[in-house]
């Protein structure tokens, strides 16, 4: 399997130096991983003392402490779990306009963050948000799965329109999403209500959600290109005669994006916007750590 050109050894080394930022861990994680959490577990890493209750393992009683305090305490140890990292990439038609470049960058970001998760000992899975049959990769567990994971990104075909909230509900059920992290890669060309609903669908399933919006510079300042004529929505096919000022057009896009960002902030969901003319390396190593995605 030939290595993709963007996955250079240098870039991979930089990814290995990073780790996913995890704010909380909910139930449902597989035990036996390498990520320690403050939960009574069986690892060797000391967590805390707890008062002895009948039924506790008497081997955990700290006799030295009993000698000094004349009370029974047991030592608890952190539990090491394996975190599930869901990488959800928007594969609707809007991601392929005008070229698959935007979609490619979304896949590259997903693979990069997935590899960071693998190096932390988590498991990662890719799924693509597209109409029709659910398209998802199997779980990846090892570092060596990097190129296999990257190869999976060439399978999905862009196109069509899908309702984000409904797709998220169906996918969460189908893939049995519960706990862990879900990172959503999208251009945000979705009604805000749909977006809120989809994020909420994940949150209620104890999943820590993170959102990365990928846009081209032209999408951020559409007035430079849209100076009259008819605009055609590539997903819905709707047409509209454009006769607005440049300020109106630019302000509309700005307000839409700010709406998504504000919602995420209110919900404690890390949100980052990635311009296509921005370097992938710089975005991962500088922007994402600053936005609470990575450590």
């Amino acid at each position, binding site marked *: 399997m030939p290595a993709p050109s963007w996955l250079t050894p240098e870039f991979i080394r930089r990814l290995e130096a990073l780790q996913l930022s995890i704010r909380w861990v909910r139930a449902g994680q597989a035990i036996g991983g390498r990520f320690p959490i403050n939960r009574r577990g069986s690892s060797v890493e000391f967590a805390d003392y707890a008062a002895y209750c009948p039924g506790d393992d008497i081997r955990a009683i700290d006799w030295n402490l009993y000698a000094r305090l004349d009370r029974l305490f047991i030592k608890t140890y952190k539990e090491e779990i394996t975190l599930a990292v869901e990488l959800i990439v928007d594969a609707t038609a809007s991601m392929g306009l005008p070229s698959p470049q935007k979609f490619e960058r979304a896949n590259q970001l997903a693979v990069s963050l997935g590899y960071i998760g693998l190096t932390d000992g988590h498991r990662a899975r890719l799924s693509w948000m597209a109409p029709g049959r659910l398209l998802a990769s199997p779980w990846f567990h090892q570092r060596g799965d990097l190129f296999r994971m990257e190869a999976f990104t060439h399978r999905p075909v862009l196109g069509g329109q899908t309702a984000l909230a409904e797709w998220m509900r169906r996918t969460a059920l189908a893939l049995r999403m519960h706990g862990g992290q879900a990172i959503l890669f999208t251009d945000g060309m979705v*009604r805000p209500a749909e977006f809120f609903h989809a994020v909420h669908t994940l949150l209620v399933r104890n999943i820590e959600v993170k959102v990365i919006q990928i846009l081209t510079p032209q999408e951020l300042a559409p007035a430079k290109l849209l100076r*009259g004529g008819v*605009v055609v929505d590539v997903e819905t096919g709707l047409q509209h005669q454009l006769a*607005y*000022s440049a300020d109106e057009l630019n302000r509309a896009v700005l307000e*839409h994006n700010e709406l998504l960002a504000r919602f995420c902030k209110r919900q404690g969901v890390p949100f980052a916007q990635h311009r296509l003319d921005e370097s992938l390396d710089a975005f991962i190593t500088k922007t994402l750590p600053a936005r609470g995605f990575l450590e």
Partner: protein
Amino acid sequence: MTFATPAGLLWLLSVPVLVWLWRLASTQRQFHIPSLIPFEHLVKRPPRRRSRVVVNRLFWLQLAALLAAALALAQPLWFQRRAKTVLVILDNSASMGARLRGSTAFDRAVGAVGSRLRRKAPADRWLLMTTSPVEPLAREPSSDGDALRRALETARVSQLGGNLSTAQWIGRALLGADPDQTLVVTDEPRPAASDPRVSWVAVGEPLPNVGLVGIDALGPLCAPAPARLIATVQNFSADPASVRVQAIQARRTLASVAVELQPGQRQAVSLALPDQAQGAVEVQLQAKRDALAADNRAWVDLGRRATLPVVVRSQSPAFLRVMSKWLGACQALAWSAEAQAPSGPFVLVTDREDDRATAAATLTFAVPSKPVPVRSQWVAATDHPLGAYLEPLQVVSASLQLSGEAASGAPVVWAIVNGSRWPVVTVQDAGGRRRVVIRLDPAFSDEATPVMLVFFNSLRWLARASGTLTTGSPVPLASFAPGAIAVRRPDGAADRVEVQAGDSAYERTTLAGPYRFEQGQRRETAWVNFFDPLESDLTHRASTWQPQPTAVSTTAPARAPHPLARTLLWLILLLVLAEWWLYTKKGAASSGLPGGMSQASR
């Protein structure tokens, strides 16, 4: 600016068509965008204004091409100031070299022309003419300021007289038309009424001067006797002048005379020479407050004065008899009464008006048809060598030809008969040849002493014609074989002259002094003198300017039309090329689709 065919401006109606097409394209153009969702609230409300014409650089190029095409069809004419033709007459005659202190008038003249050259319009064509000799400094009129300045730097003061009108005539002939402006830079006074198109720059000033105005070697014709040099000097100043005249040969002073000249006085100074004096003798004049150096030196060649033989040619036995009687008394003269001319130059004495043989000089007796001796009073011009030994006024009995026909040449002796004045002796000196006409019959006047004096004075003046050349007159080169002759000029410059078979001469005698000619083993020296009272008189300068009629209409338009259609066609071509390049570049960029939206035209 105007238009030759204003109807072509109707093509401007195509501009609204272009705008309409672009507006149509603007409304029909489709943009595929990822989603309309960000613009939903805009879509819901009606647009605040109508769709406008969306233009880019292609539109402006097309508009410019249309406008240029409309202008080209209208054939615009742009009026530009017509380039002026300026004739510059630079006086470089001998008087321009005069100075007592400071710069010469010629230096000031060159400075004045140079400053005007720096200010001239780039398109103006100038022709620089000098007056002495009359010739252009550049071969043709030029608008190149640097070339004109270089040509101006080659101008030098000559030792010739100058004539501004002649320079103007020749300048107009070289230009082929009347110049738009004539610039005269001279030391001559400005004429009272002049053409407004003539700009006059006066650079001269009244200066004192004393100069030699003539020289003659009055050697003995008949018997050995001490030779004498007669130098005529004149005081052109407003004050009396003390003058010393010296004859110098090989740095040895042969004779020296001091005279006192009153203002304007002309006087002949006699310098006695040694018996053995031969060859070139230089006459020098020294005076205080003398502004012009060119007229202070003169040369005469004593060695050639007796070389010209005399030939008497006549059909009249009485004439031949009298001539043989007179000439026979002079043993020093070589004369003959032959019909055939000798091979070399000679002086011809004849009584036939039409006898214009190849003589170097001619003495013609105009014999009256009815020879009757009459008493008359002769008035002689003492400032001419012919009148050197004559009394200013004396009574003479001679058979004169008193006719009403105009005398050819300058009168030297007049006869007053019955209250009327008739020229008796006239002289001509042109082209290196001298001619004397004596209007009397020697056969009936052979006893009159003034008649014989006039005869021998004439012979002396004629025989030494080649010895006293003046600047501007050609040096006869008859003694050289056909071919090239190397010339060494008085200022040391080398020149070359080609001698043809027959009568040839060296004509570029612009400086006074010795001219040395060399052809193979043959070497000769000619002495050229500067005698020009008009140029020497720096106090009362005479004007040589004469108004000349204009040959062409002077109402030439100040501005000339220049059609712009060709320029506009080039502009259209460039615009079309730029449009094609831009369209190609735009097409290539669109095929790459680097942006976030795609465009398609419907």
